[in-house]
């Protein structure tokens, strides 16, 4: 039971980080970046391919590679399309996602790549007779640290203030002189950092990396930002957390019926959206924007 609760919290935290990465980019560009999945995937590949190095070196290298790919994505595709119809941007992100999956397949092969990343984080320990996995505790601690750092950045720094303003009303932020290229690049860079963090946590739990590795968590995190409130960074983080906790709890509660966990999750999502169409943290304005 305790392990199940910890698993639910750790999965919630993980989805929260992924949703925050998506929410940052959505906030400044109104872009649902499906290719965020490929940022998580490239980060996971980098972690596995550099597993022979000390974890800190491997992690640093992973962050650099992921941020580079995120910035390249923004500069080479999304910057060229800025201002076009959101539907075109959405299709472009699908296209980019598919192209990158094929590129990864060519680079790393279609079969999963594997390596033991941070072996000291595997295994479990006993507390009052209960067996608890180290990875679930590490995931929770890591998620809390990253969310606190992101919270500080978003709530207390000048960059965070600009990101929050741009998330609410990008046009007015620009009219106040906020430099859009710099802000959008910063959002993509941060989403790359978050993708690397998500990949680290995922790889500790599942080191079998395929070209589609980041897809599942990205789609579910997108569901999270929709139910949390698509125009709010806090909403994105909350929504991601809810999706993770609910999914983990359903998997535990449904037992053999866990194949229906996604069905129940999406029923819950539909109910939330029927009651609060703009998301849990919306105040109604998002509806008008859509």
């Amino acid at each position, binding site marked *: 039971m305790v392990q199940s609760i910890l698993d639910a919290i750790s999965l919630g935290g993980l989805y929260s980080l992924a949703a925050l990465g998506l929410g940052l980019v959505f906030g400044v560009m109104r872009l649902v970046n499906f290719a965020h999945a490929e940022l998580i995937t490239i980060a996971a590949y980098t972690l596995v391919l550099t597993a022979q190095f000390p974890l800190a070196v491997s992690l640093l290298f992973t962050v650099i590679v992921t941020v580079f790919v995120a910035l390249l994505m923004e500069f080479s595709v999304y910057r060229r399309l800025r201002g076009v119809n959101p539907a075109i941007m959405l299709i472009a992100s699908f296209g980019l996602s598919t192209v990158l999956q094929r590129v990864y397949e060519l680079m790393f092969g279609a079969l999963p790549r594997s390596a033991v990343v941070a072996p000291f984080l595997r295994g479990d320990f006993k507390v009052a007779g209960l067996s608890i996995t180290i990875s679930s505790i590490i995931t929770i601690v890591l998620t809390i640290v990253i969310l606190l750092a992101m919270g500080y950045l978003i709530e207390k*720094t*000048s960059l965070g*203030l*600009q990101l*929050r*303003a741009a998330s*609410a*009303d990008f046009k*007015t*932020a*620009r*009219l*106040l*002189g*906020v*430099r*859009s290229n710099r802000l959008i690049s910063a959002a993509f860079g941060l989403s790359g950092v978050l993708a690397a963090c998500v990949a680290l946590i995922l790889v500790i739990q599942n080191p079998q990396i395929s070209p589609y590795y980041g897809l599942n968590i990205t789609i579910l995190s997108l569901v999270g930002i929709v139910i949390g409130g698509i125009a*709010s960074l806090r909403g994105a983080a909350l929504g991601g957390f809810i999706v993770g906790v609910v999914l983990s709890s359903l998997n535990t509660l449904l037992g053999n019926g866990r194949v229906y966990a996604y069905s129940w999750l999406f029923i819950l999502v539909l109910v939330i959206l029927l009651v609060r169409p703009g998301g849990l943290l919306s*105040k109604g*304005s998002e509806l008008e924007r859509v």
Partner: protein
Amino acid sequence: MDQKSFHANEISKSFGALQVLDNVTLNVNPGEIVGLLGPNGAGKSTFINILAGYEKQDGGTVVVEGKPLDGLKPNARARAGIARTFQSGRLFGNLTVAENVALGAIGLGESGKVAHERSESILEILGIEKLSPHAAGSISHGNARLVGLARAVAAHPKYLIMDEPAAGLNEDEAPRLLQALEVIRKNIGCGMLLVEHNVKLVTQACSRVVVLATGILIFDGNPRDALNNADVKTAYLGNAGVH
């Protein structure tokens, strides 16, 4: 033309066959509050949109302190020292009042620390420092107008364009706006162009008014004289009446 002034020279603009502005020339000097009056459809909004870079003129030039602004987008003009307020306020409802005002400075490259200090200082100058921690989406319309003004001033602009700042204010709130304009003039010293339907407010706040009618500048002078000018009466006051 004063080298330090904000100068619009012979601005023309047409939308299809409709000429909205016809060779309009206007000068605003540092520390001066100039009122821009005119009935609906006179071309006021188009004119200030051109000044702030939201629309391109067909002819004429816009110059600040001797430097032409033509071709610059609104954010570039903001960095050149031209700030504006919006009729709709355009505050970030999810941010606090202090953060909204600080953004005015951050947008132009000030550090967060300087911007927040400036924000507190401007809110205090305008007498609305108690609003500082409140979400901008939760304050009254009158206060939102003042916060919008504070945000524009936080950029320490050389010139400030105000688009109907008194719109929707009640009789208690309008004097607070008038007081705020005077405080800004004294403390910040920027030149201001006040586009307003409230003639009483304009005559009280401004040392000079210009009047537009059907895209033509028909008066430029003392506010008291404007009220007695036959052309102005015919074009504007005769239709709209004095508030």
